[in-house]
C-alpha cells in the first residue's frame, strides 16, 4: 500500500473542500454533543448567534483572532522558505517581556511605539538564534525553536516571581498594572484594541511584500526548491535568516499586543498556546498570507463559540477541546485525501 498524488483535482471539489470538511466535523461533533445531553443544532445556533450576533461576540472574535493572525504569520512566513518555526510561543513571550519592562519603567507618551519596536526586535532576536544555527550549521530549526520556547516561558515566570513582581499585588506572581500611557486604546466599550487594526495592517504589508518584491519571490523559490534557488544565485542562508527574523518580530508584536491590549500587566501564562496554534493556522492557510486572516478567525471563532457553549450548557471543557481539535483535524485531513490517494 502506498500513497500517491492525484493528478487531476476538480476546482469545485478543491474550493468547497474546507466547507465540506467543516460540515463533516460538525456532524461528528454533533454526535458527541448529543452524548453529553446537548441538542447539537441548538448548540451550533448558539455558537453562531453568540459570536456573530452581538457586539460582545463580534468584538471578542476579533480580539481573540488578533494574536492568532500574528502567530499564524510568524509560522507561515518562514514556512514559505521551507522552515518550521515552532518557536512563535517563545518569541511572543520575549516580546511581552520587553514591552512590560518598558511599560513599567519608562512611562511616557512614546511608550507604545517604543514597546512595539522593542517587542519586534526581541521577538526577532529570539528567532535569530535558531535561524543562524540553521544557516551556519544546518541545525534542525524545529528542535531549536521548540526548546527556546521553554527558556522564554520560564524566563517570564522567573521575572514575575522575582524581580518584576509588583508592589501592589499582595505578593502574587504579577507585575503591577501598566500606566495608562502604556496600554493600547480600546474602542466601543469592548476589549477591541488598537492592536487588532495593527495586526490587519501587518498582514497587508506582508501580502504586498510577498506579492510585489523580489525578496518575496526569492523566498518562494527557496521554499519550492532550495537547490534551484542557489543555481539562480539566491543566497539561501540569507533567506533563512530573514524569514525567521520577520516571523520572530511578528510573534514579538503579538506578545506586546496581548500584554498591552488585554492583560495590562506581566504575568505567567499570558498565552494559552497562541504560538503553537499558529502552526495549524498556517497549515490551514497553506502559507497564503491573506488566507491567514480567515484561518485565524476560524480558530478565534472556535475559542469564542466554545466559551459560549460552556456558559450556556456548563459542558465539560474536554468536550470543547475535542470539538476544536476535530474541526481542525477534519479540515487538514480532508485536504490530504483530496490531494492524495491510497493505492494498493
Amino acid at each position: 500500500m502506498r500513497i500517491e498524488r492525484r493528478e487531476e483535482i476538480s476546482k469545485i471539489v478543491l474550493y468547497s473542500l474546507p466547507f465540506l470538511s467543516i460540515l463533516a466535523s460538525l456532524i461528528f461533533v454533533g454526535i458527541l454533543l448529543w452524548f453529553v445531553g446537548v441538542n447539537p443544532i441548538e448548540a451550533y445556533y448558539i455558537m453562531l448567534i453568540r459570536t456573530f450576533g452581538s457586539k460582545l461576540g463580534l468584538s471578542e472574535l476579533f480580539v481573540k483572532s488578533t494574536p492568532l493572525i500574528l502567530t499564524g504569520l510568524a509560522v507561515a512566513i518562514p514556512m514559505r522558505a521551507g522552515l518550521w518555526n515552532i518557536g512563535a510561543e517563545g518569541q511572543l513571550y520575549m516580546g511581552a517581556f520587553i514591552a512590560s519592562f518598558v511599560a513599567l519603567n519608562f512611562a511616557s507618551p512614546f511608550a507604545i511605539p517604543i514597546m512595539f519596536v522593542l517587542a519586534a526586535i526581541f521577538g526577532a532576536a529570539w528567532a535569530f538564534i535558531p535561524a543562524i544555527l540553521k544557516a551556519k550549521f544546518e541545525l534542525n530549526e524545529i528542535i531549536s525553536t521548540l526548546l527556546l520556547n521553554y527558556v522564554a516561558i520560564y524566563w517570564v515566570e522567573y521575572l514575575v516571581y522575582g524581580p518584576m513582581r509588583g508592589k501592589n499585588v499582595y505578593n502574587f506572581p504579577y507585575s503591577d498594572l501598566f500606566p495608562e500611557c502604556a496600554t493600547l486604546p480600546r474602542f466601543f466599550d469592548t476589549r477591541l484594541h488598537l492592536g487588532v487594526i495593527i495586526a490587519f495592517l501587518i498582514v497587508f504589508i506582508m501580502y504586498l511584500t510577498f506579492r510585489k518584491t523580489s525578496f518575496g519571490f526569492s523566498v518562494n523559490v527557496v521554499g519550492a526548491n532550495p537547490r534551484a534557488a542557489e543555481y539562480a544565485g539566491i543566497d539561501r542562508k540569507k533567506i533563512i535568516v530573514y524569514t525567521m527574523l520577520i516571523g520572530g518580530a511578528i510573534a514579538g508584536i503579538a506578545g506586546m499586543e496581548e500584554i498591552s491590549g488585554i492583560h495590562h500587566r506581566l504575568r505567567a501564562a499570558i498565552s494559552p498556546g497562541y504560538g503553537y496554534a499558529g502552526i495549524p493556522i498556517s497549515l490551514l492557510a497553506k502559507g497564503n498570507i491573506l488566507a491567514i486572516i480567515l484561518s485565524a478567525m476560524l480558530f478565534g471563532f472556535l475559542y469564542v463559540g466554545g466559551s459560549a457553549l460552556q456558559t450556556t450548557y456548563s459542558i465539560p471543557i474536554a468536550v470543547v477541546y475535542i470539538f476544536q481539535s476535530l474541526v481542525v483535524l477534519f479540515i487538514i485531513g480532508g485536504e490530504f485525501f483530496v490531494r492524495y490517494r491510497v493505492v494498493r
Partner: protein
Amino acid sequence: MKKLIVLAVLIAATLLLLGCTQEKTTEQKKEFKAAFVYIGPVGDAGWSYAHDQGRKFIEKKYGIKTSYSESVPEGEAERVIREYAEQGYNIIFTTSFGYMDPTIAVAKDYPNIVFEHCSGYKTAKNVGTYFGRIYQADYLTGIVAGMMTKSNKIGYVAPVPIPEVIRGINAFALGVKKVNPNATVHVVWVGTWYDPAKEREAAESLINEGCDVIAQGQDSPAAQQVAQEHGVHSIGYNSDMYKFAPKAHLTAAIWNWSVVYDYIVKNVMEGKWKSEKIWWGIDKGLVGLAPFNEVVPEKVKKVVQEEKEKYLKGEVPEQYPFVGPIYDQQGKLVKAKGEVMSDEELLSMMFFVDNVVGEIPK
C-alpha cells in the same frame, strides 16, 4: 483563493444579519440565575471541585438555575464573565485570584448584577470578595502530622510561592511545632496547581529523604497516592481525598463553600446584599477537617478537638496560630509573645517559620 474569501465574507455577512434579527427573540423570562467561573476542571477533587460542591448545594436548596464554566484561563475570564452578565445572571461568582481585574472591569458595566470574587482584594459597589481562613484547618492538620510522624520529617508538596500557600505551610508547621518541637517540615515546590506527574515526583523525593507524612497544597490527589504506595501517611487538601488513598490519608484541610454561597445567595435574593469582604474561618464552617482515618489514635483526635474548640469558643483570635512568639527561618523574632499578626500581614506573608526546611523561590 479570492473566490474563497468572497464566499466566506458573504457567509459571515448573512450570519451577522441573521444574528441581529434573532437576538431579541431569544430573551428568556426572569428567573434567578447564578453563574460560576472556575480556574480548573470540576472533576479534580481540588479547588474548583470544592467550589462546584457549593454550587450544587445552593442550586438544590433554593431551586435556582446555576451554570458554570470550568478551566477558564485568566486571559479569557473577562469574556466569560461578560457573557454571563449579558445573559442576565443575577449573581456571578469568579473563583480565582487572577479573575480580579476582569471581574472589576465587567462589574463596572453591569451595576445591577452582583459580582463576588474569591480570594482577591479589590471591591466595588456591586463587587464583594469572599475567602476562607483555611490556615486554621492547616494548623489542625499540622497537629495530626506532628503527632503521627516517627521520623520527625514531614514532607510538603507545595504548589506556587504565593502568600496563600506560604500561610498554609506556616500554619501547618506551627501545628507540627505545637505538638512536636523536634519535627521539621520539608518543602518541595512543584510550581503548578495541577500537574499530577510532577506532584508524584515531588512526593517521591520527599519520601526518599525520609519523610513519613506527606502534606500537599495542589488540586490533584497524586501525592496521596504516592504516600499510599510507599506505606507512609498523608494529609489531603481542598476536599476529602480519602477514597484516593484509604490507607495513607489521615485527614485533610477542606473547604466547605456551600456555607458562604448560601449566605451570599440568600442576601441577594432577599435584596439585602451589600459589598463585603468575607474572610470566614472554622467557626462558620467554611473551612474544616475531613473525617479522621481509623489509624489516627484517640489522643491525637483529642488534641485536635481541644485546639478546634479554641476557635469555636472564641478563645483565640481568628489569626491564630499566627500569634507570637513566631520566629522565621533565620531565627529572627517576627512577632513577640502575645502579638497577633494582622490580616494585612497574613495576606502578604512571604517568609517561612523556623521549623520549615526549604526556600521561597525569589
